[in-house]
């Protein structure tokens, strides 16, 4: 990681305006103006909290995770390669922080882990109370199914299908190959489909 900061690749494509802007905020922060870091937080906190919520299922935990992510980012800001976008780096830290929180939570109490579901999207017009109940039930069962996937598959499929990132973006975040990501998400999708079949079959 330190090496990439030293040997910055200049042959890559031109950095985007966003990358340049973040790079200038990072430079200011590193030269002692820690207020410039607020700009970085404001720009990325929603993405970090959103991913943490999907990985942890609990909003309060996700907030703690996001806080930890930005503190770590601040601490290791000098390791960042300013030629490249900051997002994969932040997402990678988010995944790692959430993994740690998840593990310590599992150690503390097993039951705590699999029963929490993140809040449903609010503000949609409710036409049919019966439909609402069904949808809520489906939502809970799908989170449960997602949470029961093996950790690596769950993280990969969350980034790819629920966050909507591309396979190569997921591979960059998880620091693995695209083919590894493909095999993880393919298995996860099949498992999710089986869980859905079971769920719908059980209801009818």
């Amino acid at each position, binding site marked *: 990681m330190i090496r990439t900061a*030293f040997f910055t690749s200049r042959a890559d494509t031109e950095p985007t305006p966003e990358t340049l802007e973040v790079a200038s905020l990072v430079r200011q922060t*590193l030269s002692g103006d820690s207020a410039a870091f607020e700009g970085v937080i404001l720009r990325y906190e929603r993405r970090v909290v959103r991913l943490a919520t999907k990985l942890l299922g609990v909003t309060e935990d996700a907030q703690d995770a996001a806080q930890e992510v930005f*503190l770590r980012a601040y601490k290791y800001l000098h390791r960042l390669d300013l030629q490249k976008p900051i997002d994969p780096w932040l997402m990678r830290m988010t995944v790692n922080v959430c993994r740690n929180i998840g593990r310590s939570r599992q150690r503390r109490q097993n039951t705590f882990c699999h029963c929490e579901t993140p809040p449903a999207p609010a503000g949609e017009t409710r036409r049919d109370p019966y439909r609402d109940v069904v949808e809520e039930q489906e939502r809970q069962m*799908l989170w449960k199914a997602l949470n029961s996937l093996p950790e690596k598959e769950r993280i990969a499929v969350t980034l790819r299908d629920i966050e909507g990132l591309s396979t190569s973006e997921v591979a960059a975040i998880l620091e693995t190959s695209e083919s590894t990501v493909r095999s993880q998400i393919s298995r996860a999708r099949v498992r*999710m489909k089986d869980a859905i079949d079971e769920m719908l079959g059980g209801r009818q």
Partner: protein
Amino acid sequence: MNCGHSREILALFIEGDLPAGQAERIRSQVQACAECRQTCEELRASQSLIRARLKISLQTPSIQQRVMSQIQNERRTLGWAVQIERAFVLSFRGRPYAFAGLTVLLVISAVLLGQPRHALPTMEVPLGYRSWVQVRDNVYVDPAGYREYMKTGAFPEGTVFVRELARSEGNKEPDPHGTLVVSVKDTSRFEGRWGFYAFGEKEGSVAPSNGTCQPCHAAHAQTDQVFTQFYPVLRPARMDIG
């Protein structure tokens, strides 16, 4: 499945996750296989259900305040390791050759400093020394060293003396020197030309004890730190008495 497509491959196919070439092959085979088409439909349905139901609402207060106040506290306690690393990275950023040069320099100096200054060799009890040339009742010298000395009056490199410290049976008091002392001429490894070793009851190799032995040998021995004055056999070649 008839055409042998795994559901996993189809799960990638329906989301466009396969590399172009493979995707084309699967596409034509899926068109030909009703069962595959059915599986693809089911997978598409489950994927869209997942997308629809696993949306989350995010109405959380900004964490910016919390993080910034933490940072103010933590700035003083960033940790010296991180601070050194940061100073290092920032001063060498964009200067990879300077960094590479410094690294090489550090490695070389670490290797040089890590080596023991004068690694003095250890020694084991010489095998069969009792068949060597006996120069006194309890002192032996190796035959090659003996011959050379008798010819030239000087001890060649590698000459070995062995002195047994056996005592009479009644005397149980241990000799402070041990049971056997050995000296070897090795100018390249010993500043004082000779290495002195004292063996005790235990077997195995011992480190040199030049500090204990050499001062006396250097001060009182007649010929090249060897007590030739006490070894009548070596008398004929002594230079000092001609």
